[in-house]
């Protein structure tokens, strides 16, 4: 038999691997966002495309510069910065000025991610950090919405209010929900409504999410708990006073709920690891979202809700560990 040289590998077990890698996971998430981006470009035209490109390139460039400055290997090829960029763009209005988009990209990567040590270390979702910073710092630019102008329709982007914004205004002024908002649910589902680039089309987002579920990158827990608690709580208010509070379906289809529940709240890095923890996390997001939407100062609460639950994630992880095999419930 042949002589074995020093070319042998020795390691601890296991000696085989599933073949799944971080890069593959990130790529799959990017692929799953393609439909939402396509719909956005269809409805909002070149300005949306520009925001998407600027945000993505901005995030990649910022990450590369940060890592170069800190003398670390540049890992922008792992796709995580690109995801942050795309998600950030999807959370911006289609008419965002270029400087706003770039600023958001820098904030997301520097404050949201790299100061914590890069991939896997950030406690808050970087894209949401950037969105909230921008929302608070530049409320005008961040809440200037435009009605969709589908490609080929010849329409220009016209400034208008989002359905949630319109509802909030009406309730503040008259105490009553405007009737016409309840009507366009099918249009909302398809994405034909004003809003952030990525939050308009529930259909496209769900398509992508279905792919992620199929690839087992998403588990159902967080989205289900998120959507479920929103339906439950908003349904409760709706049943009590349908004239003032919008229906659960309205809640689901408008604003960033689908984007939030399936993409932002499922960011693995910033969410709990145990099944029970994920359910609590999702339910907490839903609860806070409805509370902020119905009673808060902001018309949309998804971003804040997720950030708040991000903050609670370490505690959830700590107190909702899975019950270890062979340990009686309630003991250790």
């Amino acid at each position: 038999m042949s002589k074995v040289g020093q070319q042998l590998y020795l390691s601890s077990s296991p000696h085989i691997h599933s073949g799944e890698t971080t890069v593959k996971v990130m790529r799959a998430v990017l692929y799953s966002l393609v439909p939402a981006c396509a719909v956005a470009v269809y409805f909002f035209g070149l300005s949306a495309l520009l925001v998407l490109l600027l945000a993505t390139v901005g995030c990649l460039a910022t990450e590369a510069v940060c890592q170069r400055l800190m003398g670390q290997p540049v890992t922008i090829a792992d796709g995580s910065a690109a995801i942050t960029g795309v998600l950030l763009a999807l959370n911006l209005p289609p008419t965002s000025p270029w400087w706003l988009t770039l600023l958001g990209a820098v904030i997301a990567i520097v404050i949201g991610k790299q100061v914590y040590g890069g991939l896997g270390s950030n406690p808050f979702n970087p894209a949401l950090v950037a969105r909230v910073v921008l929302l608070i710092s530049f409320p005008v630019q961040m809440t200037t919405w435009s009605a969709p102008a589908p490609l080929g329709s010849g329409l220009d982007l016209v400034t208008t209010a989002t359905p949630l914004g319109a509802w909030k205004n009406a309730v503040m002024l008259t105490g009553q929900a405007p009737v016409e908002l309840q009507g366009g649910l099918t249009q909302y589902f398809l994405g034909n409504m004003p809003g952030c680039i990525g939050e308009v089309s529930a259909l496209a987002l769900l398509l992508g999410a279905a792919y992620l579920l199929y690839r087992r990158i998403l588990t159902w827990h967080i989205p289900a708990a998120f959507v479920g608690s929103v339906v439950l709580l908003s349904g409760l208010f709706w049943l009590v006073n349908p004239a003032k509070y919008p229906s659960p379906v309205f809640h689901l289809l408008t604003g960033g709920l689908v984007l939030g529940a399936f993409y932002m709240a499922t960011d693995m890095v910033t969410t709990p690891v145990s099944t029970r923890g994920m359910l609590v996390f999702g339910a907490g997001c839903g609860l806070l979202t409805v509370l902020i939407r119905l009673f808060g100062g902001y018309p949309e609460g998804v971003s804040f809700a997720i950030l708040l639950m991000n903050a609670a994630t370490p505690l959830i992880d700590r107190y909702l560990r899975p019950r270890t095999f062979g340990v009686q419930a309630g003991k250790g």
Partner: protein
Amino acid sequence: MCAAHDRLTEMKLKTFAGGIHPPDNKQWSAHKAIEDCPLPAELIVPLAQHIGAPAVPCVAVGQQVFKGQEIGSAKGFVSVPVHAPTSGEVVAVENRPHPWGTSLPAIVIRADGEDCWSPELEPADPGELSPEEIVEKVRQAGVVGMGGAAFPAHVKMSPPPEKQIHTLIFNGVECEPYLTADHRMMLEEPERILQGVALLQFVLGVERVVIGIEANKPDAIALLTEMCAGTPVEVIPLEVKYPQGAEKQLIAAVAGREVPSGGLPMDIGVAVHNVSTAAAISDAILDGRPLIERICTVTGPAIREPKNLRIRIGTLLSHLVDACGGLAEEPGKIVLGGPMMGFTQLGFDVPATRGTSGLLLLRHEDVPLHPEGPCIRCARCVQACPMNLLPTTIGAYARRDLISEAAEYRALDCIECGSCGYVCPAAIPLVQAIRYGKAAILAKKRKA
């Protein structure tokens, strides 16, 4: 057979929570009948082949020994003697490379080619033996758990009186990918297994006896079911999932009960033995023969002709490779045992021991090499962990030497099955990190 397979896939199979589905790769050797490995010229019998105190040599250099003669005596209760695997001359009692990674005491025997059994070994009539006598004979025969852990079998056969065993489970799961030794034994030598089953049932006085087999071995399930018809032994097909064959997971699947953390199966009235152990017990009593050989699967993409070999304990791995037609290719990794829990070796100059269920040779391209990245908290390890632990958290604490935190997250409950490491997309050596943490926790406990 086909019908049996269909029935298996239709049934809701018993299993446990968590676990993974690696490709089983048993096709390399599953259809190969057991072959006798040619007797090597020299056998190196390590004195430490089991969990517990190593045996103490009781022969001198130059002494002639018979096959089956005791050459190392047990030291203490949790220990077993070792025996000469063939007749010949003791040529050395010294440290030799051992599969555990260092040089350890071993007895080297030069075979005389006669392969002559010791005249002192005599078959016994089990009907005339008391349970205690059977246990003692099993101990003298050096029988250990043959699934890999090599825990002395007589210890599991003599539970303290307050722990009455009511369920006896035989492990024919063989959930490690690549390995087919138990599978072939169940197909080719079921009588040996069932005789051992009957003996254990008698010794422990149990009502319920179960043989658990993974559903990817429909032929073995069909055969044993047929042979057990009319006996109290029940054959239960189990879902194909790793680590179905881990003791605690097997009990959970079959008996629906959890072994308490830090406890033993006997704490909940269960005893688990491997099917090959049952066969070895049968040999020890009915033939009076000690454990000097076992079935070992030599397989993997780097071996020319994968086989299931009947090998003598103490055969060098190089000899096993030669018996399988040599190497097809330069190996990248030599693994003793299965790919999930086996140990890598530095070369082929170590002997097979009683726990050697397989020799797996991987090519360079089969070795997972992609570099470790940061944990993205994807929770795959959490979902895969059959013990419901948080592997990534324990690993992170352990490698930062935050030992009490690792202990708080129950690192000691880890069974090191490797499921977390298998699924980790960041290629973090989780099992190694947790092992490191466990060792540190135990060291700290000893100190305190």
